[in-house]
């Protein structure tokens, strides 16, 4: 019944949205990451391009291209689809344009909550949310009489039990690839412990403390329960591990669930795969996970006509009820009219549990970079936790000085 109602609503509003969209001039060129939800969004934007030029670049290397491409004047791209971390370098270098005027004029379908505002200026319009949460194999857990873990301590106990039962050699998996991925796991776990990355609002680092040590020790415990090659495993690699049936508990992005639960692969594993809330850690009550949004930004170094055309096309997609109904299982859409399905459990639970967003700070990228390379030796067992954290802080301070933050 609900479905029918929703469908009816689209028919009603769908036509309205389309009618709104007749762009006469300008050119639109989009730079975006490459995963199904973003492809859907861009396709939807294309529907209403009118007589504007329309080009798109989907690339997993989007982060490396973005700053140089938007620095050029006129910039290569008129739209950059960014997330809470990747918007920071754009703002640091003043490469994106506030869009209050356009929101006012053309942003009818966009909800207030979708707007990313900095000091009242709308810098981005979000359309989907993401987080990392637990995936479990219900069959394996049941066989061993384990309840669905709610904390990382329970994850460790459960994984140890599965290993002891001889079921799996490496029952846990998470993207621990040295670099960005590993640092992201640290960020999650540290926030779960209630840690703050910087001393009271400034840029001085603040991770060499008891919470940091506890974070590292937990990462190490989990790493010991993972495939020994964990330092080379990114999200894609652990997904393959999961699909091969080698893993019973996994921490993975919500946005990756689509391909994990499709018809390809072992039907038994797919049927037993369950998405659950992110875990807490160290007795904390907020999850050891960060909330992410994906949204679109407009390049500053482009003409007003291009900005207007781009905004109208993107706003059409970012408010399309038709799209979120059709692609309901591709993402947790922030667009009005989205009906959450079973794949949205992780994000919704994370929000309910009060998860914190990834810190949108100008110097956070430097901290992330320092974490990704300096905690590796601790996980390899060559260094104490205190020394690793000291190294992270030292590496961060050096980079922050070069960048003028300290």
């Amino acid at each position, binding site marked *: 019944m609900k479905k029918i109602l929703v469908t009816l609503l689209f028919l009603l509003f769908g036509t309205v949205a389309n009618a709104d969209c007749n762009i006469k001039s300008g050119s639109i060129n989009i730079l975006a990451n490459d995963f199904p939800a973003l492809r859907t969004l861009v396709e939807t934007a294309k529907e209403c391009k009118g007589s504007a030029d329309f080009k798109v670049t989907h690339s997993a290397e989007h*982060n*490396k291209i973005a*700053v140089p491409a938007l620095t050029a004047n006129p910039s290569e791209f008129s739209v950059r689809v960014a997330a809470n971390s990747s918007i920071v*370098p754009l*703002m*640091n270098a*003043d490469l994106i344009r506030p869009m209050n005027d356009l929101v006012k004029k053309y942003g009818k379908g966009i909800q207030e*909550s*979708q*707007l990313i*505002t*900095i*000091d*009242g200026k709308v810098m981005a319009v*979000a359309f989907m*949310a993401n987080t990392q949460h637990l995936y479990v194999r219900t069959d394996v857990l049941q066989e061993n009489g384990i309840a669905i873990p709610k904390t990382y301590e329970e994850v460790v106990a459960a994984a140890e039990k599965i290993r002891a039962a001889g079921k799996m*050699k490496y029952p846990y998996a998470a993207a621990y*690839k*040295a*670099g960005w991925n590993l640092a992201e796991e640290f960020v999650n776990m540290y926030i779960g412990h209630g840690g703050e990355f910087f001393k009271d*609002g400034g*840029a001085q680092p603040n991770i060499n403390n008891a919470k940091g040590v506890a974070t590292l020790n937990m990462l190490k415990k989990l790493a010991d329960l993972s*495939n*020994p*090659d964990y*330092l*080379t495993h990114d999200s894609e690699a652990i997904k393959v591990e999961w699909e091969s049936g080698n893993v019973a508990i996994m921490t993975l992005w919500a946005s990756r669930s689509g391909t994990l639960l499709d018809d390809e692969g072992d039907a038994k594993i797919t049927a037993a795969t369950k998405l659950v809330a992110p875990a807490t850690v160290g007795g904390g009550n907020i999850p050891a996970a960060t*909330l992410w*949004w994906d949204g679109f930004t407009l390049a500053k170094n482009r003409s007003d006509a291009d900005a207007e055309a781009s905004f109208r096309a993107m706003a059409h997609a970012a408010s399309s009820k038709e799209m979120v109904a059709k692609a309901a299982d591709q993402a947790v859409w*922030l667009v009005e009219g989205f009906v959450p399905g079973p794949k949205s459990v992780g994000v919704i639970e994370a*929000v309910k549990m009060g998860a*914190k*967003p990834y*810190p*949108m*700070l*100008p*110097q956070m*990228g*430097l901290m*992330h*970079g320092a974490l990704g*390379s300096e905690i*590796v*030796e601790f996980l*390899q067992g*060559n*260094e104490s936790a205190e*020394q690793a954290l000291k*190294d992270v802080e*030292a*590496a961060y*301070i*050096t*980079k922050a*000085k*070069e*960048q*003028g*933050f300290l």
Partner: protein
Amino acid sequence: MPNRSFFWFFFPAGLAMILFIGLPIISTGIQSFYAQHDQILIEVKKCDPFGCKTSVVVDQEATSKIKEEKPLGKFNGFGTYIDRNHLASDQVSEFWNESKSVGEFIGKVGNLPFYKALVFTLTYCVIVTPCVLLLGFIIALSLNAISRKIRGPLIFGTILPMIVTPLVGSLVLFWMIDAEGIIGANLQILMDDPYLSVKSSKALTWITIIIYGVWHHSPFAFVVFYAALQTVPQEPLEASIIDGASRFQRVKHIVLPHIYPVVTFVALISLMDNFRVFEPIIGFSAEGSAQSLSWLIYDNLVNEEVILFGSAAATSIMTIVGISIILTPVLLRTWKEFRTNR
């Protein structure tokens, strides 16, 4: 060739070199002396789908004014060169004072990013270069002695590692040493250790990369040596056979001296190539265990969300200096020989 015609022959190449190599190096050098301006941060209210909070952003108005005045940034002199992520002069002297033994000091210095990368780069260079020379020479000698009928296909097979794209070559080996790959799994059985991982062990990763390096570079040495072997005069060889020289003696006293200039050339090129080792680290996802100087530059430019131009420029310049230092002995020797030959 008269100097005049030499100049006109060389001119196009020289111009391209100045434009595309010389000027970028100069610009890199200039960049390495600058750091970013002090960031002016202001507290603002930030709102996103998950709520509002007060935190800092870069004050664009104030920053753009400073940037317009001094677009290159803040002059930093050798500041970037001696900071912790490069030569780390302060840290090194501090470690020297507080360390009780030389071993402890070396351990601490080896933990600094630049020295960590330098140690790997040098180890790679020092092991791979001689291995490549030796292996290339042995293969060239053996192929040279083989019947002409099967020589063609064998030569093709031998230079295959050089034809295969470096990244693909390293990926193939990367999958083989996976805990579930053919080499990784067999090693686990052989060592009777189910948790053995080639990829997470530092020593094993280094060995893998070095073996890969030798495999990938040997064909180059082989091809050059093989070509040089074709020019070895037959008369002295035949004479030495009549004199009763063994195969080893013939190689040592006739073949090697004859192709010696070529050996120097291959050694030079290999040293330069190996000092800039980069692809295998990416191919093997070995960032955790092995970092090279080239990888540090890459890391500063692309792995950070904030691009560290100054850092990358400083490391680039130091890599160039490093290559010059490594090449000096070989170049000096060649120069000396050149003088004596005259």
